[in-house]
């Protein structure tokens, strides 16, 4: 794996490090709670957890500015929390309640926030890639200097529409960062069994799109790469590809027994590469925070997550007449 590591001495303040820790921990605890609510039957259907991949969105968002857009696939809870969407609204959408971001009509895979410039939440693998380029097309059309983060997985990277989009994004210089979240398994198919190139970002070369691989378990490496990518797009040079090498600890979805990999493989990642533990170590060894400080953050996050679960449990189901609304504008 040629993924770039972060520079030795991270040029990052204690406040920033603490923020990354907090943001990643929120996603981890939120997802654990979502898994629990799923087990209790409060969340139905498909539920794809982001546990293990937290450093990707938190690192990417570190370089985002107000008004920048983001769009992703169905493994979307982390992206929503990272861009500042309310955990209550996200969790209540998971339980299909009135207080959810889509009033309970979208579910885990289909959530949106116009306010936070989050454009979904898309259930068809790779459909979000041209849509994301379209968001960037609109920004270029309006000449507003915004950048769109278009996330997709290693599995989506084998869909034809990705390359149709690369081609158009390149000829039209669209300000879009294509973020390939390579968690190494397209559902149950390991990358080597499905994908001709070990480093997927190299496919951009065929379209003249620059790119790089980055260690997705290292939030600081992701942040540095995100700054390069965003800078490139914002300066009018067109699209950029970031392949973020990451790992999901849980199954593809809740009903995946994950027999395609060993428990040892998962355990090794967890114990040696965990993105949250890495930042925790940096905070402690750099004396940026004490054990007590971190415990206080843990407690605070736990409360936020418990409150979101409580909200999601008690928010009423949508009124039956909601069935017939929002079909036409």
């Amino acid at each position, binding site marked *: 794996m040629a993924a770039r590591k972060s520079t030795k001495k991270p040029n990052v303040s204690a406040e920033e490090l603490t923020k990354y820790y907090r943001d990643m921990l929120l996603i981890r605890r939120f997802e*654990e*709670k979502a898994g629990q609510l799923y*087990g209790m039957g409060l969340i139905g259907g498909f539920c794809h957890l982001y546990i293990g991949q937290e450093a990707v969105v938190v690192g990417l968002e570190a370089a985002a500015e107000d008004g920048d857009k983001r769009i992703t696939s169905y493994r979307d809870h982390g992206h929503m929390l990272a861009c500042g969407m309310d955990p209550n609204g996200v969790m209540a959408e998971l339980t299909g309640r009135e207080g959810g971001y889509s009033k309970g009509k979208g579910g885990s895979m289909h959530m949106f926030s116009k306010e936070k410039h989050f*454009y979904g939440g898309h259930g068809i693998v790779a459909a979000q890639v041209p849509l994301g380029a*379209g968001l960037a097309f*609109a920004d270029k059309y309006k000449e507003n200097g915004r950048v769109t983060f278009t996330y997709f997985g290693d599995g989506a990277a084998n869909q034809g529409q990705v390359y149709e989009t690369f*081609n158009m994004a390149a000829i039209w210089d669209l300000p879009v960062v294509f973020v390939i979240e390579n968690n190494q398994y397209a559902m149950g198919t390991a990358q080597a069994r499905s994908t001709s190139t070990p480093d997927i970002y190299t496919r951009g070369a065929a379209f003249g799109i620059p790119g790089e691989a980055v260690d997705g378990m290292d939030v600081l490496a992701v942040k540095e790469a995100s700054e390069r990518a965003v800078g490139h797009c914002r300066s009018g040079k067109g699209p950029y590809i970031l392949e973020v090498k990451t790992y999901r600890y849980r199954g593809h979805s809740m*009903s995946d027994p994950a027999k395609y990999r060993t428990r040892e493989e998962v355990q090794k990642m967890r114990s040696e590469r965990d993105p949250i533990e890495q930042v925790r170590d940096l905070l402690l060894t750099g004396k940026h925070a004490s054990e007590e400080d971190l415990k206080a953050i843990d407690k605070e996050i736990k409360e936020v997550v418990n409150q979101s679960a409580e909200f999601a449990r008690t928010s009423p189901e949508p009124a039956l007449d909601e069935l017939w609304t929002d079909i*036409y504008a």
Partner: protein
Amino acid sequence: MSSGPIFTPEGKKLDMATEILMPALSPTMEEGTLAKWLVKEGDTVSSGDILAEIETDKATMEFEAVDEGIIGKILISDGSEGVKVNTPIAMLVEEGESLDAAPAAQEEAPTAGAPAAPAAAVAAAAPKSQPEVDTSPDWPEGTEVVKTTVREALRDAMAEEMRGNENVFLMGEEVAEYEGAYKISQGLLDEFGPKRVIDTPITEHGFAGIATGAAFAGLNPIVEFMTFNFAMQAIDQIINSAAKTLYMSGGQMGAPMVFRGPNGAAARVGAQHSQDYAAWYMQIPGLKVVMPYSASDAKGLLKTAIRDANPVIFLENEILYGRSFDVPKMDDFTVPFGKARIWREGTDATIVSFGIGMHYALEAADKLAEEGISAEVIDLRTLRPMDLPTVIKSVMKTNRLVTVEEGWPQGSVGSYIASEVMQQAFDYLDAPVVTCTGKDVPMPYAANLERHALITTDEVVAAVKQVTYR
């Protein structure tokens, strides 16, 4: 829930207890087998530890702890089958808090009541009074009209709307420098420049998605498909992204855009280039579907489509592009969606059609008139929304109905109309509805076979004679 104090194996009393419930591990799981505990009473567990293996009907799954604590008591033993989801299977305990503080049993997963049917779905078989319909003319009487081709009318509609709204742009294959494969976009590049009249690569799936994304962000794209046959490459973006996002986002964002291009058979281009998609798109909630016949409708409806806040499928026809019709000379001429046009009044039978089907319908009505049969001819103009009241009102007068379209018979537009008329006006029908469609075959190339595969005027004449028992 077990009652009474809980003791660890060492006999230590513990007060705070959390139930660990049998989890649902798939969207459809109701019960499962607790195959194997991987922890025992007294073990300390933390979040992420694997507690047990659970067999569902599909797989054996590992069940992880979410909370930290001590396994106080195992309630369901290894190998138990048919354990219902949400049954307590163990108690997780913690020191120092009272048992009363233990969370109550989880509330049941909510069960939705039966959804209320929309009022319109509960049809009366025999309306007491004639339905209200809008019969106002499309333009004020006395307005000057100009003979205009459908081709020019479409171009004029786009140009007028692009002048009025900076956010409208046209994108598609050969729309700019070539001025349209069928010369619909003549002059638009000159007037609006390459920012707003955009040649795409041959990549329907991709550019339909890019245009939909641009619409999410507030632009108003017009996507030209060189023909709708190629839109099958893009249909996932049209339906899953453009049509459904408003609903899925709870009304936060949608796709105010138009997908347009020639649809249906042209001439001698064979099976892959000769298909009518009216019935396909008509089925999709979230889409509006327009299929004009005349030039004034092409212009007035395309202007309405570009202004609409929803994704509109605008089905044109290559053979009609060169036909001329009267178009009113007005500053801003539009035609509303959901309003059929009665082209010809009659008393003996109603012929309903749309798009190029109108050509056969009108020609048949002329021939029938020569034989003393008076046919009323209705052009639906938009298929979604569909002006069924105008059709039903006409059927209440003529008591006979023939539908005409180029598409295939199974699941046709006509079969939907026949079904609605049967449900809403059964008592007014004096004969079974006849649906005239294209033949149930891929389009052949040979000239004689192609003629036979399409609907013909003679078939429409025969259908009207059949429903009038002549």
